[in-house]
Structures are given as structure tokens and as C-alpha cells.
């Protein structure tokens, strides 16, 4: 991440090509993050454009940063949420994409778990995630996908670290509650199948 910082500093001193490097590097991750909030690509593009133009205009007031990624995510999140708010769209957050071939993604093709079992697990997870609040889903995404630490998540989402933890516990609770029911459901169907 040292390189990140060098480029960031060059950009802050007015090097536009450095901004381009940052743009190229973070285009896909930011688009992906934005896609979790909204499936409207145009909206995400607008937010990205606003973000980078704003970065350029304010470059003299932008400070050094520990993490360029966290800075960009935080700024992008703010721009995007404002746009969503203006359009009066709900803050929603999706964690799992449907229609993915999970066995391929996870490299589980010929291993312990069958495709059917994988699909079952995915359904369970998707259902459990759906029961969560958007903020809980976002935390799950940031922790498991972006692999951020709780301190970083708190900073990004403008929460205290303790309330970030609380949100996670609640999320896990939701998962647990939901899962126990589906497990029971699964068990009972299995039992009923056996009877036949």
C-alpha cells in the first residue's frame, strides 16, 4: 500500500495522471461496492464521476491518508448515498449475487461438497442475509468481502467501533435464528423422506 500513498501524494500535488492511475485501480472495486447499493449502473457512474471530479477540485484540502482505499470508499459511499437519497431510493444492500456458479467460484467442483449441497448452503445464506438490515448486510460485505477490520468499517460507515460490533452481533443473531429454523425444516423433510 506504500505505492498507493506515493500516487495519492502525487495526485494531491496536482498530478492528473496519478488521479487516472487511482481511477483505473479503483474503478472496478468501487463499482462493485456501489452495485451493492443500487443496480442502476448510470447512477453509480454518476457517483464515480462526481467523486473523482470532487477529488480533483478539493485536492489542495485533501490530507495524507493511512489507507487510500478506505478514503475512497468512504467518500464514494457518501456521494452515492446522497444520490440515492435525492432519488428517494431506499438504502438497500445486497451481499450475494444470484445466478453465480458457486462450485466454480469456490473451486469445489470435485471436492467434498456436491453442487446440490452448495446450492442449498447458498440458499440458506441468501435467506439469512435477506433477514438482515441493509447496514448489517453492508458490514458483512465489508468484513468478508473487502476484508476490512472493524475499526475500518466503523470509520467508513461513520459508526463507533462498539456499535459496529453490536450490528455484527445482531446480524449473526439474525443468521442463527433463521438458520435454526431452516435446519429444522431440512431435518423434518429429510425425516419425512425417509419414512417413505
Amino acid at each position, binding site marked *: 500500500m506504500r505505492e498507493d500513498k506515493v500516487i495519492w501524494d502525487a495526485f494531491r500535488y496536482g498530478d*492528473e495522471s496519478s488521479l*487516472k492511475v487511482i*481511477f*483505473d485501480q479503483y*474503478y*472496478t*472495486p468501487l*463499482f*462493485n461496492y456501489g*452495485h451493492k447499493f443500487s443496480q442502476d*449502473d*448510470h447512477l*453509480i*457512474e454518476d457517483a*464515480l*464521476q462526481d467523486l*473523482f*471530479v470532487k477529488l*480533483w*477540485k478539493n485536492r489542495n484540502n485533501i490530507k495524507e491518508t493511512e489507507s487510500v482505499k478506505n478514503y475512497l470508499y468512504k467518500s464514494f459511499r457518501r456521494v452515492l448515498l446522497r444520490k440515492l437519497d435525492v432519488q428517494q431510493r431506499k438504502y438497500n444492500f445486497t*451481499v*450475494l*449475487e444470484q445466478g*453465480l456458479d*458457486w462450485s466454480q*467460484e*469456490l473451486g*469445489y467442483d470435485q471436492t*467434498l*461438497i456436491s453442487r446440490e449441497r*452448495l446450492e442449498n*448452503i*447458498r440458499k440458506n*445464506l441468501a435467506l439469512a442475509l435477506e433477514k438482515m438490515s441493509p447496514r448489517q448486510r453492508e458490514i*458483512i*460485505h465489508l*468484513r*468478508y*468481502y473487502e*476484508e476490512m477490520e472493524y475499526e475500518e468499517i466503523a470509520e467508513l460507515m461513520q459508526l463507533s467501533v462498539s456499535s459496529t460490533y453490536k450490528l*455484527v452481533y445482531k446480524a*449473526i443473531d439474525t*443468521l*442463527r435464528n433463521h*438458520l*435454526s429454523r431452516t435446519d429444522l425444516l431440512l431435518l423434518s423433510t429429510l425425516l419425512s423422506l425417509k419414512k417413505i
Partner: protein
Amino acid sequence: MYLITAMEQQQDYSQYTTTTFFSDEQFIRHVLNGDETTAAYWDLIAKQYPEKMAVMEEARVWILMINKQPAYQPAADRSALWSKINSEISAYEYNQQRYYRPLKIAAKWAGSIAATLLLFIIIREWAAQGERSYSTDFGKHEQIVLPDESVITLNGNSGISYSRTWRSDKPREIWLQGEAFFEVKHVAIRNRLQQSDSFHVHVSDLELTVLGTRFNVKNRRNMTEISLLEGRLRIEKTGKGAFVKTLKPGDAFIYDSTKQQLKDLERKPQVNKAWTNNEMDLDGYTLQEILNVLEDTYGYEITLKTPQLAQRRLTGTIPATNAEDILFVLKKVFNLKIDQKGNHLIISQN
């Protein structure tokens, strides 16, 4: 290291379910960034809790399912978006160069110009300190309100000047040339008369001292007429032929500065202030005196060809908005012949 610390504080995993594994930080770290040591540890746990193998596996799949999701690939074009950003930045920079920076420079210039101007004004004010003066042309009146709200009405061809810095601890002072009617504001607190409450008029070589009063002062041809309508007024002459005279309302005096002599004035104060209403009260005026007024206040040059007319008198009030009114009346009443050549009037008996 991981193995040892984890082993030392080894959890009781007997109650673990998919969700507990899913949210266990050690487990997450192992699944996402594991190495041989972490693998060894969790293999050990799996052997210790064989019944947990299924939920462990499920938790691992959950973590990986979220983690390994391929990034969303938008149909949008990245380079097209960058050109948009780039052109917006360019437009912004252009405006900065073209408008904003010149404006900033202009603002800087305007600032220094304003500063210079301000300095200039301050210097001028400083230089003009102490003196403010007003004067009138022939045949014109002007009303001046002084800083203490006293009002002075200036007759034609007259002027006053006064010190601009009227402080409450100093007497108010005015210098007069020509004729003016004063309505002086009374500023003294009852029974606490102070030197600073007085109002001084310097005219000719006299000093008039008043409090709140109304009076007329006329200073023409080395003669000073002082007519008091209200209040008290003290005439003071210092130096050669010094005297002090205190006037009551209704008093009118005339002072001859060549002879340094103060005499009663025949004309009454009310008559002497008639000009402030654009009238001329003829009571007590000789024709010569009226002609003097026409010269002093209205700017004519008059030659009286028939000297015996000079001491003639008449009574009544005539409008005096302009000199023509006065001349018209005089012409009719005294049956005069008036030849006018510009400002010069030659008057004779018809």
C-alpha cells in the same frame, strides 16, 4: 505462533454452530488468509470435534461465498467514464484560469485601490479637520443644521464656518460673515449651567454668547446688527473699547466697528428677521438702507442719482423672494426711474 496461542486459549467448540464459526475471527482469518499453521490448528479441532465438521465446512463455504464473489462487471465503459471526468476537470481548470484567478487578481487590485482611496479620504478629512464652512450666493438662502441640531439660516452672500469637532466639553463656536438667523438648541441641563453649554458667534470683532435662543445677526459694511427674539444674549468686545452688553428678548443693537460704538437699533428684531420668510418688513428702513440690502444680499450695484431720496421711508411688508419684487414696489411707491445695465442699477426720481 497462531497454533500455540490458539491452542493455549483453545475454545470450547462443542456448542459451535455454523454461525458461530462464521463469525469467529480466528476462523475467518484462517479461511481468508490461512497458512499451514492455521490449517494444522483447525484440522486438530476437526479431529477433536468430528461432529462439527459439517457446520465448519458450511461456515467456511459461507465465508468463501461472500469473499470469492467476482466483482461486478458493469456494461459501462471505464475509459468513457474517465473521458467524462477528464473533460469536466479540464473545464473546471479552464474556468479557474480564465475567470476565477483573474477575478482573484482583480479583487486583490480592487482591494489595494480601495485601501489607497480610504487613506486619501482619511488624509483629506484629517486636513479639513477643524473647519467646515458654508456660503451662499447673492439672493439665495440656505439652512444649515449643526451637529448639535441648532439651525442656522444663511441670507444671500453670507457664510459661516465652524469647527467640525464639536465635543460636549467645549463651547460651540461659529464664525459669521454676512447675515444669518440662529435658532440655537438649548443643551444645558436645568440649574447646571456650564461653560461648555454656551454657543459662541464670532462676528466682526464681537463675540456673542448665547444658550438656547433665536436671534438674527447682520454684518454688513462694518456695521453689525444683533436682534434677539428669544432667550439671552451677551455681546462682548475685548481689546480696545471693550464692553459687555446683555440683551433681553426684543432688544436690537447696532455696532459700528469703525467707531467701536454700540447703539440701540431702531428697527425691531421681528422686522430684522423677516427675510427668513422671504419678506421685507419696511418698518424703520430708509430707502438708502433698502438699497444697501439690495447690494449686500442680492448683489446689485446701485447708484442713487437723486440724493434727497435716500432718507425717505415707508411702512409695510413686501415680498422679497427676489430682488425684482422689491424693486417693483420701490418704483411704484417712490415713483422711481430705474435704468438697469446688467447688475448696475441707476435710480433717479421720475
